[in-house]
Every structure is written in C-alpha cells, then in structure tokens.
C-alpha cells in the first residue's frame, strides 16, 4: 500500500484536509443580513446593473415618487428633471452626474424625510392594495444608496409642505448595516417654491441617447401622463418643456382589500395571525373584498371549521383546508374602482402631442381580473408620417429604373409599454405586451407583417396595464408576466385599435386615389400634347389642345365626389371613436384642447363636442392656416 511516493505525498495532504467546523464556530458567523447590505451586493435586481441604466433608474424612481405624491394629494404635477454633468467632460463622455428632480407636490413632513430617502423598504405604498407607480418603497432609497456607493455623496432633499411652513434642507445617507438613515446635515432654508419636494443626488452614470435612455423615458412618461407639465434639462444643457395637454387629474384610485382569489397560502397565514377579528367569518368578511357574511359562512362550512374558531388559532391543516375552501367558493370579481386607467382621451392627447403621425386612436378595455387582482388594459396607436414629415421625402425621390420598386420602407412599428403609467424600457422580449403585439395579425388591418415580426410602417403601438398589482417578471419592474387573462385583454384592445386603423387606411386609400385621379390626367395631358405635336410635325397649337383637354379633365374629375372622398365635407373621422386624423388640410377628431386655448370646452369634454359637428373639427394652431384657405375656396 504505502509505496515510497505515496508516503512522500501523504503529509502534504494532511495539511489540506477539510477542517472540521463546529456548530458553535458556525454559529458565531451566522448573523442578520441587512436589506441594505443585500442590495449593495445585488444592485442589478433594482435596475442598477450598469452606469447607463443606473442613471435612468435614478431619474425614474424620483419622477415616479414625485408623480405619485402629487396625484395622491390632488395636485396637477409640475415636475422638473435636471441631469447635470459633474466635472467638465462632455455629456457623452462624462461618468458622474447630478440628478435633480423637483415637484410641486404636497411636500414631506420633517420627521419623515430621512427614512423615506435613506431607509430601504420604507414607504406608504407597500401595505395598501392601491394602484400607484411605486409599490415596494425601495426605489428612491436604493437610488440614494447607489449614489452613496459610487460617489460617496449624500442625498440632498429640500421639502416644504405649504407656503406658511418652513422649507427643510436635509443631507442624508443610509447606514447600510442597520438600514437606518444617517443625517449629515439639517437646516431650515429660504426656498423659492411655495410647496413641493426636491431631491438631488450625485451618481456614477453614463448618458447615451437612443433606446432605453433618459430622454426616451421622459418622452414616454409624457405620453402616459398628459396631465403632467414636465421640464427636462438634459446633460447637454438643453431645456425641453413638455406642457400638459390634458388638465384633469386622473381619478384618485381607491384602496381595496385583497381579493380572496389573489391571496397565497403564506399571505393567508399572516393575515389570520394579524387580524383584529375574533371570529373566522368576521375575518373573512372584513379583511377581504367581495366576501359578504353569507359567503364567509359558506367558506367556513366548506373548510369544515367550527363557527367559534378564532382566526389566530387556525394553523396547519385547518388553514390549508380554509385556503382550499376559498379557492372552491364562488366569489364575485373584485371591485375595479381601485384602478385609475389613463383614459382614451388622455392617451390620445399624449400620443398626439409627442408622436407625429396621421392617425391616432386609443382604447380602454373594461376592467378584468387575473388571480384576484383587477386590472385594465389600454392600447393606442399612432400611425403614419405627419404631412410635414412626409413632404421632404417625396421631393427628393428619383424616377425608378426597371425592376426597382417605390420606397421600400422597411421600418417596423415600435412598441411602447407601460405599467401603471410608468414606461417599461428593458426586456421587451420577455414582456406580455410585446408578445401580444406580435401575435396580433396586423395584416388583417391593412399593414404588412412578416411571420413572427412586428408590423411594418411608421407606427407606435402603445399598451398600458393598470393594476393594483402588476405582475412583473422581476423586482426591477421591466416586463409584465404572461397571464392568459392579461394576454386576452391586450389582444382585444389591440384588435380594436387595428380595426380603427383599417378604417382609416381605407379612407386614406380612397382619398389618395381620388387625389391621383385629379393629378393623373394633368400629367398625362402634357405627354399626349407633346406627342401629338411631334406626330403633326411640330405644327400643332399645343396651348390650345392642352387647354381643351385640361378643361375636360376638370369637368370629369373633381368637385363634390373628390371632396367627399377626401373627407372635406365634414363627414368626420369615419365615425371612429377616440381617434384623431391628421391631413394636410387639418386635424379631425378628439384633438386635445390645451388649457390655455379653451378651458370651458375641455371641462365638459365629450357631450358638448359631439353636439355640434363644427366642434368636431378643432384644428390646432399649425392647421389653422390651411382651414381658413379652404373656407375661402368654397365661396
């Protein structure tokens, strides 16, 4: 056995042999992990994977908080977003940025400022079932922690609750071990703003335009929040203003109790433990939505539990029976007034303002339920090139050679995804919205679509999911999980948009061919006259012949028929609900009226607008010129 070589190796091995560790020794190493420490190591879970995304996440968390606060307080939000370069590198090269977000919201009371900005999992939204942008109370403090981690600089907050109150100026950091705020400085200052909160932090980041950039986030946020006035100061120093296009706050969503179907076993146990009710039926009826005393009684019976059983004492097997009983009892779908969809008019206003196109439409589906959570799907389309965009393209076109085709526009549609009004910019492929858009057969609606691809054409597809609990695929809230109920609603919304698009495309096609009719004779007359002149050996009175033919062409085409096809006789946008059509002659449909333009009409939207046909066509300033010209012609 023990050969010479083996003997030589043996002692070395002994030193490497696994050291036995006793439970006591192990116990000495076992201690609590603070949430902050955990997230310091796992920052990618919160969207701080790389500098570029981190910059976006910081802006996003701060803006989400600002908007949530304003809306909850019933204030039309006025938000300033400022991203500045720290140091003197150009914006595209810089690695450090100062992000400042200021709002006109309700402000934060002095005592709450430090924990809100420097304590993870602290907030008002987690414990309520209510629709809001933020859900967990991690976002802004995680951003602060990221700042602390990359630049060592504290988060700077100024907040004021009213004109009479003092403005508080704080500099805070997180004690990552204890997950407690550490206040570096606190003072009362003079502040210009009468009310609101301003948060600013210095972080390591990277500014790059394009997909999933801060700029894109701002633009998409404005689309889904047309009631917000947003000012964005880019790292390059440019100030972009996005005035509100819709001056009604979304209705405040109500807080609801959980629906029994949406609850998981562990959650049920926790609720049983925490309830203040003394009877099981009381617990069921009070702590859940849509459970009436008779329904509670029915659940109790199915579960085979005693009417006198105290919720606190239901454990193990009994709890499991209760859980099963809940699932097997028929319970009404949850109430849906906890949701605050954007609304068709507002989506339309947002799309119209931010995206140039020819046709806009928006659909808000009735509420539906997945796993006991109510939700609403909204979809919208912005299609085509606006008349002023389209023109330069045609003027530089060249005549075609044999076999060539007219501009093969291989542009594909773009999807913009939202969950509770927040744009989703990452992981499009994993998202139920993308899948729904791909599964829609856009060909039926007059678009081109290759297999498994998005439809062709200059188009933006807007999809929004509003829910008290949006099922994200991960904590960083980037993609919506794939539930059948959600997919079905998305498909229905997109189909309705598609149908309206088809109606529009048909109409445009008709108008186009009528337009062509007018032009075509004029073009060909020229050719024919010249050829005839050559045939006659150059001895023809060309002007006379041309004039004669021209007169005939005018007599044959034109007039009423063409006007009708072009929709110039006030026939409106094809009876399409919630749509806007833009033509070189003007704009039709539910064009948003800016607050400054006509406040009274906006206040009483729909009803008045539809009473008079004249009101239907409400041209924006850019279209005014064309409309007045047209009126003159008619005379």
């Amino acid at each position, binding site marked *: 056995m023990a050969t010479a070589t083996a003997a030589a190796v043996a002692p070395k091995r002994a030193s490497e042999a696994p050291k036995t560790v006793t439970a006591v020794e192990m116990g000495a190493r076992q201690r609590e992990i603070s949430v902050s420490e955990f997230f310091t190591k796992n920052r990618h879970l919160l969207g701080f994977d790389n500098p570029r995304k981190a910059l976006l996440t910081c802006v996003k968390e701060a803006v989400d908080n600002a908007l949530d606060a304003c809306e909850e307080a019933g204030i039309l939000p006025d938000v300033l977003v400022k991203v500045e370069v720290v140091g003197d590198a150009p914006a595209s090269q810089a690695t450090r940025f100062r992000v400042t977000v200021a709002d006109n919201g309700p402000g934060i009371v002095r005592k709450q400022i430090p924990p809100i900005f420097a304590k993870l999992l602290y907030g008002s939204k987690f414990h309520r079932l209510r629709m809001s942008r933020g859900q967990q109370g991690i976002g802004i403090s995680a951003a602060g922690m990221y700042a602390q981690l990359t630049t060592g600089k504290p988060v700077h907050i100024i907040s004021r609750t009213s004109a009479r109150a003092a403005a508080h100026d704080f500099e805070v950091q997180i004690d990552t071990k204890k997950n407690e705020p550490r206040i570096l400085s606190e003072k009362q200052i003079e502040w210009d703003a009468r009310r609101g909160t301003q948060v600013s932090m210095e972080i390591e980041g990277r500014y790059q335009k394009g997909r999933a950039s801060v700029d894109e986030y701002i633009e998409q946020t404005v689309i889904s929040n047309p009631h917000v006035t947003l000012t964005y100061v880019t790292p390059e120093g440019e100030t972009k203003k996005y005035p509100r296009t819709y001056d009604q706050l979304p209705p405040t969503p109500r807080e609801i109790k959980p629906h029994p179907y949406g609850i998981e076993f562990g959650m049920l146990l926790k609720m049983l433990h925490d309830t203040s009710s003394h009877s099981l039926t009381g617990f069921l009826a009070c702590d859940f939505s849509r459970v009436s005393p008779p329904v509670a009684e029915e659940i109790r019976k199915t579960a085979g539990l005693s009417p006198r059983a105290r919720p606190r004492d239901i454990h193990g097997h009994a709890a499991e029976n209760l859980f099963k009983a809940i699932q097997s009892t028929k319970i009404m779908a949850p109430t849906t007034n906890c949701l605050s969809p954007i609304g068709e008019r507002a989506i339309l206003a947002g799309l119209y303002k931010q995206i140039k196109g020819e046709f806009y439409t928006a659909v808000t589906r009735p509420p539906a339920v997945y796993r006991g959570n109510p939700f609403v799907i909204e979809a919208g389309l912005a299609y085509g090139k606006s008349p002023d965009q389209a023109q330069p393209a045609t003027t530089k076109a060249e*005549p*075609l050679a044999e076999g060539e085709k007219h501009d093969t526009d291989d542009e594909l549609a773009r999807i913009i995804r939202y969950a509770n009004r927040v744009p989703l910019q990452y992981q499009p492929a994993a998202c139920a919205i993308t899948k729904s858009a791909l599964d829609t057969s856009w060909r039926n609606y007059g678009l081109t679509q290759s297999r498994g691809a998005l439809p062709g054409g200059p188009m933006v597809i807007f999809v929004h999911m509003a829910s008290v609990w949006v099922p994200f695929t991960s904590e960083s809230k980037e993609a919506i999980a794939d539930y059948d109920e959600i997919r079905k609603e998305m498909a229905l919304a997109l189909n309705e948009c598609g149908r309206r698009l088809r109606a529009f495309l048909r109409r445009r096609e008709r108008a186009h061919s009528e337009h062509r009719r007018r032009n*075509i004779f004029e*073009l060909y007359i020229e050719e024919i006259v010249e050829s*005839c002149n*050559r*045939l006659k050996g150059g001895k*023809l009175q060309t002007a006379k012949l041309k004039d004669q033919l021209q007169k*005939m062409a005018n007599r044959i085409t034109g007039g009423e028929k063409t006007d009708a096809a072009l929709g110039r006789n006030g026939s409106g946008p094809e009876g399409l609900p919630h749509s806007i059509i833009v033509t070189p002659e003007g704009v039709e449909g539910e064009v948003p009226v800016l607050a400054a333009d006509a406040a009274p009409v906006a206040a009483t939207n729909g009803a008045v607008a539809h009473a008079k046909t004249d009101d239907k066509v409400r041209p924006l300033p850019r279209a005014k010129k064309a409309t007045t010209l047209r009126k003159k012609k008619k005379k």
Partner: protein
Amino acid sequence: MAKKAHKPTVVEKKLVGVADVVITAAEKRKDPTLTIPVRALSNVTFNERKGLIEMGKRKQARSFFNMAMAKKFMQTVLVADALAELQRANLTTSLREIYYRTKHTIKNSHENTLDTQDESDPIIEDLEVSLAALREELHVRAENAGSIVGPVVFVDDGDRVDCTRLGKGGYSVPSIVEPEYLQIARCTADFVLLVEKGTQWNRLSEDKFWRRYNCVLLTGNGQPPRGVRRLARRLHEEKSLPVYVLVDNDPWGYYIYSVIKQGSINLAFESQRMAIPKAKFIGLSSADPEAYGLPRNVGIKLNEKDTARAKELLNYNWFQKKPWQEEIKRMLSSGLKYELDALANKDFQYLTKRYLPRKLKEKDWLD
C-alpha cells in the same frame, strides 16, 4: 423646311391619324377614344372554307378620360409617335428599342411613362391591329430566330444567298422577309419541312437530309417567329411547295402546328399572309410510339398544365376534325408526351434514316 421634302408613307399617315383622333375629340369636347380590335379567343372565328383563323369585328374603346385606361392611352400615343419617327428616318428597330425610346419620366412627377417592356409590346400589337399595318410595315423587327437550308437561292440586300452552300448552319432567316427585302431567286426543292426544334433541324442538316429528299429545312426554334412563318408561306405560295410540320408530341407541339396552319389567336389579323392552311402535321403523332416501337419509358408523364392545354385544344374549332380529336384524345389517354429527341433511343440517325423516310413513303400525316 427640309422636312417638307419627306413624303409621308401610308403607314406614317395612319400613325399621324392617332394624333388627329385626339385633336378632333378635343375640338368637340369629347373624350379622345381609340378603337382597337379585341385580340382574344372570344373575337376570332375559324373560317372553315379558307382554313384560317380570322379576327372578329369586336372592338374595344380606349379612352383617355378613364382612370383605368388613361395611362395606356397616353402610352399608345407615345408609341405611335416613336413609330412615326422610325418611318421618317426610314429605320427598322426592335421591340426593346421602342420601349427604351418611349420611356421617360413624366414632367413634374416621379412616374415613368412605361415601367417595363411588357407594357409597350402589347401596345405595338394594338397599333398593328387597329391601323391594319403589319409589324414589318411599322419597321419593327423581331429576333432572327430561324434557320433555313436546302436547294433555294435568296437575294438579300443584293447578296445572293445559296442555301445549299451554307454548311450545316444554313441561312439565318431575317425577321422581315417581304419581297422588298428578300427575293426568292431560285428554288428547286420538292417540299418544305418545318421542324420545331433546332436540335432536330441540326440533325437533319448534318445528315444532309435535304439533299437526299430534295427539300428545304426550316426551323423557328420553338414557336416560329413571323419571319419563318412568312417565309414558309412564301415558299408554299410562290413555289407551290407542300409544307410538312415536325413537332414534339405534346399540346404545345400541336398548337405550333395549328399556328403555322391557321394562324394565331393573338395575331389573327395576320393569318391572311402568314397561315398555310394546307400545311400537314407529319409528326410526332401520338400513334407513332406504337407504330415505331418507341418504348414507354422514353415518354414523359403529362403534367397538369399539359392536360389542361390539351383539353383546351379539343375545344378549338380548328381541331374538330375527327382524326385530330382522336390524336389528342389518344395522347390524353396514354398520359404521356414524347419529344422528337426520344427517337434517338433507337438510333442517333433514326429520324433521318427511318422515321421521316417511312412517314413520307406512307404519306402518314394529319391535315
């Protein structure tokens, strides 16, 4: 002006007539309209007495102020203009050149007058028909896509062409063979053999079949072009030579024969000077495989198109003779078609040495 010296030809006057249509109509505030005879099966009749396909009287109107026709009308005027230019310059040209000559961008637009040659070709045919001018008269020529060899002497542009001294290749038949351009100086042949395929014509030419049987060998490489058909007709008419047609045994072969014999549907108006009503179908007949012992395995299965075409032929008026109905039905029931080349299965020279001699001896042909 110098132009005055030019005396317009009849054809040129006809072309100028197109411009007159436009001018007169405009004067009267009417929609300028050209009437064009319909070139379709529905507008041809088979004249049994003459043995010709004749064009019917149906005409279609092509008006300018009609969206569907406006462009075609404009193109027609353009092509007429280009053709008139040819007349004045006394040049001949090809279909392709007419296309290029008339193609340009319409003023103030990105639209071309024509996009492909497929648009100009039918317009030239339209003008031929409606002006009753032959393509040759319009100075438009086709490809030289035919060959001739045998005891015949032509005069082409003053050159004597003796088709017995042109080796295996023979004389390339020009597309315009009207007497003004090509004269038949001498012809001692006994008959004309028109072969569908160039390969079989080469075989016969190489074997000097024409010398042994004193005939003229002609081929059009597939559907014979006008030049070849017209030349065969002239040899038939001026030198009273019988014409025999040798084609593949398939529906397309039958149709080639029928075009040579009665004229085509598309150019029915030209049957008068192209068709050879006395032409005989010498082979390959669907009865031949059996008579000449061709094995079944050298046949080719009829595909769907073949079958459909054969059934169409059965309905044509000019295929109503009983032997023809039998011939086509025999092919359909066998489900096979045979190429001339298949004869090589028996011997390379089987066509020259056995098949044709026996056919001619037995007078085994269809009329």
